[in-house]
């Protein structure tokens, strides 16, 4: 960023020489708290004449005659326009703000002045990212950038979310965006083994408070720069850097409580279960005498609320210390962070420690060097995944508060498999009492990541700089799963000497990156109207990962928790995998009269992943930007203060698939009679290649009402073709499928973001930021035009969006006998669920789990030292399958489990009754809970994602305490969710199947932010 600013400055200086020198304006630029703003750009309005501010915020600029106003801008600040008519000195106070028209666009490879950029990008600044008590920056970005969809897969702290940019562009390859940190492509996703735990994301290791800005790149003009890996969009993260000027020491402490957010969902209490089950028995013809014998009132003497037990309140705390400063030659940023979040499911949590150092040094006027080291360590304790019998999450729905009581008469806990654990036979589904097993067993994930980067820049001429970046990304992802010998998951009844198990694993991915580039900006002559910029870059990236896993069984005592104590080595495995990319990138930019900008790029990517016949890929883009506001025909209009049109078209690719799928392979690892062996593993496809994306984007950026309302509007169409499909092959070949580049998808939509300064006065300010994104996804082509069957719930078909639900249609309850009914294709109804589900003509497409619209709305109100901001996030247009409900509201099928709180409302009891629910029958009423539209629900929701109230101490107190700033704040996350969805959480993963998900949490924290 800094380098780019200097380059920009270079151009400005060149331009400066050609104007008549008329008068000198001096001034000082400060921020809201009065601190100097260093390196702010000061420009004569409507020209490229300008300068930047010095360490004390001061500037001096010679402006041509007739100059009426200056434009002041700085990263992370709202642009200011200052009237200088008749003035020689101006003092400008800038406000921090994330405006739509920030001054630069960072693509990772390049930094371009926004008003000349052809790129469509959303930028989220530090203000919106820091001090939100969430582990993963992805979750913090939800709703803050247009075109970006973030869907939580689990509320486990440290878990990953599904991230998509401008829809889903892949069927079987990865559809997640590429992540770039400080210009280097980094690994993302899960590296720990994940034995029975929730999912995990290495990005959770990054401290969001170290992030200066996140840029979401969406259009071809930016994505073509990333070639074969840019197709799914790119998230560019820039970390905080030191600024020249007075050293700043910043300390932020935050502490609060978290609670699970379970929405409208609830389970029955013991009394409700008691009444409901007695009514079912009665309805099924059991006599009162039997019912009283089987379910005496004494059952209610000892009951346990399994929901209450599983979900707990937790604490979250974080402490961040940073020191930044420097002078014109050397600037540094140091930070130290500690984050500790307890999960909202019993016995889970996440801790993280981070240490960072960024240094930039100007060696001479030709040479600059920089280094950054970003080290992080996290220690996660994972709740058992909801599909495991030992999971407290599962138990909230399966464990009857009436029939299962966790404690024995002597007060000790049942292990779970004892007959007496259940007060009646057959009511123990899980065979595991998590109250006993969860505190003993664990799945612990310790991850270390170091991102190191060294960069050098040698200025060869005024128009050419040679840059070299070397970076290394080292990840150590360990996991240890421990199963106590006395717990359900550890016990081996047949052979007690094999009870207890320890699984330890280690994954060690290392990525090396080298970037060598020549770049520059220049004009042919000093006073030329033509500005040029170019970049020629070569990038080499090599990834290697090794993993090892050891599994031992047979533990004498649960207190002994290392592999050495296990009696029997159960399994050992290890592997290694690699890929390499070699890429060449060229980009040219041309600007005429500061009004018309044009850019073109070309990238050639070679990858070890591609088939031998298709090893290299070529990508390109073209883009243009037209600054309409500077045209003479706009001179007389008063409506627009800024107006710019841009358009781009280009290609990019997706290469997010297995490292060796192109090769025909025999894999080793088979055994027979103690001998090692091999077997065919991949049929191979020498023509295998990247998936191709072509995207068109047209954007409009504008400002009206004296820059008080700024906005961006983008429309796009993205065609993804040659998508990898696992094409079924004749099984007589020994294979079931082969990967081929076949499918085609379309994503099209629009994005609007608006920023408004509603009230601006000395003591009261109110700003609003609003964004909406719309995306429509459609499958254009599949292999042989054949559907891809997606089991009982979904199906991929041409003409439909991806992630479509394809289900039998629920026809309600037969009023005569309480039977469940489904529609047949001819419109008649049937009670035969199998007949309906087994024939595709009876099933229909009933929506998709992909949202159509996503909204973000942020309001910030400040009154003197008080600031209140609240941020809403909303989605509409998606449907989710509430599989939980099909278990807990299943008309007697899961008799003996716990039940949905309203399962006892309006079920069929008498002929003629128009009931919502079929007659409950023990063991199930004709498969009434089988997959159908009965369990499809809209999950439209509005969520108060974040609300923060902060108070800055007055200047006089701060000065007396020798501080430069002090702020107290109270922050709430997910405090309010408005939805009709009946289940636990309307926010599901991309797959949209709500089943035993770890709920997201809500939190309230208080914090202190002081700067010296």
């Amino acid at each position, binding site marked *: 960023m800094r380098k780019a600013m200097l380059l920009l400055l270079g151009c400005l200086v060149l331009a400066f020489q050609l104007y008549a020198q008329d008068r000198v304006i001096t001034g000082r630029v400060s921020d809201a708290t009065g601190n100097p703003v260093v390196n702010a750009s000061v420009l004569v309005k409507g020209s490229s004449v300008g300068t930047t501010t010095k360490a004390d915020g001061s500037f001096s600029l010679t402006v041509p005659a007739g100059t009426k106003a200056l434009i002041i801008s700085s990263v992370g600040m709202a642009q200011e326009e200052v009237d200088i008519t008749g003035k020689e000195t101006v003092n400008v106070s800038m406000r921090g703000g994330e405006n739509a028209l920030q001054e630069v666009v960072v693509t990772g490879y390049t930094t371009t002045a926004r008003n000349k950029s052809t790129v469509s990008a959303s930028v989220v600044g530090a203000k919106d990212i820091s001090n939100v008590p969430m582990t993963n920056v992805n979750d913090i970005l939800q709703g803050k950038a247009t075109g970006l969809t973030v869907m939580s897969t689990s509320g486990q702290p440290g878990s990953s979310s599904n991230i998509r940019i401008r829809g889903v562009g892949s069927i079987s390859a990865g559809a997640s965006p590429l992540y770039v940190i400080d210009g280097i492509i980094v690994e993302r996703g899960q590296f720990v083994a994940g034995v029975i735990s929730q999912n995990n994301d290495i990005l959770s290791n990054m401290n969001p408070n170290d992030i200066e800005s996140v840029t979401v790149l969406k259009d071809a003009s930016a994505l073509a720069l990333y070639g074969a890996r840019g197709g799914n969009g790119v998230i560019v993260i820039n970390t905080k850097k030191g600024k020249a000027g007075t050293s700043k020491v910043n300390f932020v402490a935050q502490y609060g409580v978290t609670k699970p957010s379970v929405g409208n969902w609830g389970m029955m209490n013991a009394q409700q279960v008691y009444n409901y089950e007695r009514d079912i028995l009665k309805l099924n013809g059991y006599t009162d005498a039997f019912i009283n014998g089987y379910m005496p009132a004494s059952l209610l003497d000892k009951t346990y609320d399994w929901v209450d037990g599983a979900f707990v309140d937790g604490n979250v705390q974080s402490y961040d210390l940073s020191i930044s400063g420097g002078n014109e030659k050397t600037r540094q940023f140091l930070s130290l962070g500690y984050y500790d979040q307890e999960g909202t499911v019993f016995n889970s949590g996440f801790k993280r420690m981070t240490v960072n150092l960024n240094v930039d040094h100007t060696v001479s006027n030709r040479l600059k060097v920089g280094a950054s080291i970003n080290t992080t360590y996290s220690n996660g304790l994972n709740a058992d995944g909801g599909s495991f019998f030992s999971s407290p999450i599962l138990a909230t729905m399966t464990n009857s508060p009436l029939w299962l009581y966790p404690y024995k008469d002597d007060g000790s806990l049942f292990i779970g498999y004892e007959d007496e654990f259940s007060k009646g036979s057959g009511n123990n589904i899980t065979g595991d009492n998590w109250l006993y097993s969860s505190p003993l067993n664990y799945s612990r994930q310790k991850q270390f990541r170091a991102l190191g980067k060294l960069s050098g820049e040698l200025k060869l001429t005024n128009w050419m700089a040679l840059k070299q970046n070397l970076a290394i990304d080292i990840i150590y992802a360990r996991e240890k799963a421990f199963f106590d010998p006395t717990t359900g998951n550890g016990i081996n009844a047949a052979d007690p000497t094999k009870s207890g198990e320890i699984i330890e694993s280690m994954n060690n991915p290392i990525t090396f990156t080298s970037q060598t580039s020549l770049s520059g900006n220049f004009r042919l002559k000093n006073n030329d109207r033509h500005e040029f910029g170019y970049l020629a870059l070569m990038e080499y990236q090599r990834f290697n990962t090794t993993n090892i896993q050891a599994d031992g069984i047979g533990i004498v005592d649960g207190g002994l928790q290392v592999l050495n104590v296990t009696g029997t080595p159960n399994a050992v495995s290890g592997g290694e995998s690699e890929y390499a990319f070699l890429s060449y990138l060229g980009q040219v930019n041309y600007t005429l009269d500061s009004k018309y900008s044009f850019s073109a790029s070309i990238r050639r990517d070679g990858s070890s992943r591609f088939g031998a016949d298709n090893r290299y890929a070529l990508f390109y883009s073209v883009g243009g930007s037209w600054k309409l506001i500077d045209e003479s025909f706009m001179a007389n209009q008063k409506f627009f203060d800024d107006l710019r049109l841009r358009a781009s078209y280009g290609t990019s690719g997706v290469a997010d698939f297995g490292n060796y799928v192109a090769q025909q392979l*025999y*894999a080793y690892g088979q055994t027979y009679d103690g001998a090692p062996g091999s*077997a065919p593993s991949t049929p*191979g496809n020498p023509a295998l290649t990247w998936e191709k994306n072509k995207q068109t984007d047209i954007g409009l950026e504008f400002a009206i009402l004296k820059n008080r309302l700024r906005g961006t509007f983008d429309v796009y169409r993205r065609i993804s073709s040659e998508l990898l499909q696992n094409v*079924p092959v004749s*099984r*007589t070949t020994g294979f079931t499928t082969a990967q081929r580049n076949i499918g085609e998808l379309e994503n099209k939509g629009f994005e609007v973001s608006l920023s408004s300064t509603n009230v601006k006065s000395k003591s009261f300010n109110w700003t609003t930021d609003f964004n909406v994104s719309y995306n429509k996804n459609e499958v254009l082509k599949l292999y042989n035009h054949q559907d891809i069957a997606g089991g009982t719930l979904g199906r991929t078909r041409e003409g439909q969006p991806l992630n479509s639900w394809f289900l039998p249609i629920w026809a309600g309850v037969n009023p005569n006998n309480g039977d469940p009914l489904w529609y047949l294709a001819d419109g008649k109804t049937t009670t035969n669920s199998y007949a309906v589900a087994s024939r595709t003509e009876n099933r229909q497409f009933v929506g998709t789990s992909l949202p159509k619209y996503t909204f973000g709305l942020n309001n910030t109100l400040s009154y003197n030292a008080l600031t209140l901001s609240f941020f809403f996030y909303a989605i509409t247009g998606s449907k989710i399958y509430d599989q939980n409900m099909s278990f807990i509201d299943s008309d007697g099928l899961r008799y003996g489990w716990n039940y949905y709180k309203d399962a006892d409302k309006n079920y069929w009891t008498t002929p003629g009754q128009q009931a919502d629910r079929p007659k409950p029958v023990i063991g199930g009423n004709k498969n009434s809970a089988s997959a159908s539209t009965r369990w499809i629900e809209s999950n439209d929701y509005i969520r108060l994602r974040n609300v923060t109230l902060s108070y800055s101490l007055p200047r006089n107190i701060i000065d007396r305490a020798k501080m430069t700033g002090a702020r107290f704040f109270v922050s709430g996350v997910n405090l309010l969710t408005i939805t009709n969805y009946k289940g636990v959480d309307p926010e599901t993963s991309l797959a949209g199947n709500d089943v035993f998900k770890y709920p997201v949490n809500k939190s309230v924290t208080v914090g202190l932010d002081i700067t010296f």
Partner: protein
Amino acid sequence: MKTGKYILITALAVGTLLAACDKQLELEPKDSQSTGQALSTMKGIDAAVVGMYANMRSASYYGRYLFMYGDLSSADVYLAKANSNRFIPTFQRSFAAVDADALGIWTAAYSTISRANNIINAVDNVSATQAEKDLAKGQSLFVRALAYFDLVRIFAKPYNQGGGSQLGVPIVTVTDISSTPARNTVAEVYTRIIDDLNQAKTLLSTTSKDTKVTASKYAASALLSRVYLYKEDYNNAITEANVVTAAGYSLVTPAQLPTFYSTVGTSEEIFTLKFVSTESLGSDNLGNMYLKPGYGDVRVSPDLVTVFDFGNDERYKNFIGPFTNSPLEFQNNKFKSQDGIQGLYSPKILRLSEVYLNRAEAYAKTSKDAQALTDLNAVRTQRGLAALSGITGAALVDSILTERRRELMFEGHRLFDLARNGLPVVRNYCNQPTEVSTPQCTYPAADPKLTAPIPQAEIDANPSLVGQQNPGY
């Protein structure tokens, strides 16, 4: 000038880097080799042979399903009412073309064949001694024949229901990912099997009766005797059986019988697919379908129990008992454990008692009743039963088939032994409260439901099979 030098240095540096990096794009996996490379040496071929056997351990094949299929489809066992939802269509004979179990065995058998094909086609080109090559090729031919035999008896009508001209299964001898073969006739498939086994017999000439967990020349003969029996070529069945009985194998004694099924390498075994303890399929072990804890879904039918002489038959005494926690039902104890692992079993695919019974049946059907009785009694007397005498003709065949039912119970033979003899599946113990209900209690030998459907997934991917589905699906 100075600038020019910088640029030159840069260009040189970049050029060097480019040249150095380009090769880096050819990365080979660490746990795999290209197919050509993997099969280019004798060591590689031997590893592929290991992989071929390993494939047969799949739970969809000899690991579990093949041994369940023939019994669940007949009257010897039933599926308990409370079950884990496994194999219901097999028991009810109510397959849909999309049935996962039928697809599973089709896939596993063909993937075994593909592994064998790769070896057969590559082994002649490696440099090694002829003996080494013959051993690898002979084993592969045997395994390929076995897999085709399993496919043809499950997915096609018995040989005698059409004289071999009915549709069999596609014959594939070369791995080609784009191939879409149509079904060959049953006769063509049998010809392929017999050719492969005869070749295997020759190529495996160095093997002995002690070669038990890999294919031997005697395994080829033993399988041939069964194949000829299915084909009703009785003289050849006798000839091949003679080779085996003369080889020095011996039936285990009543004293050895209790540990017979938990021991690998007994005197009676001809070919056993070995599982070592680390290869346990866990809950998917064959025995766990019969045992609690375990799925315990499959119980022994009273229909089978009634054919035993309870007091004397060692097989009844050792292998059928009351069901755990349900003493009125019967439990199969053949596959209780191996190496201390519950339900683990190394399937004894070919063993001497079957060869005796193959030959007995072939003798009886060619009116050599005395020789038939001798073979039958050879088995009976080692199982605690008295020798039979004085029976002839149909009654003798009947006795031999009943003996076969007792001897090979739970080993996947019963459905095929009934069908090839034109006998119906008759379930007297049928639709009882303890068991899953079935649409029919009797299935005539020609009932189309006794032939499994060609899997729909195969037809979808292989246009040559459109219109070649078995009748009734």
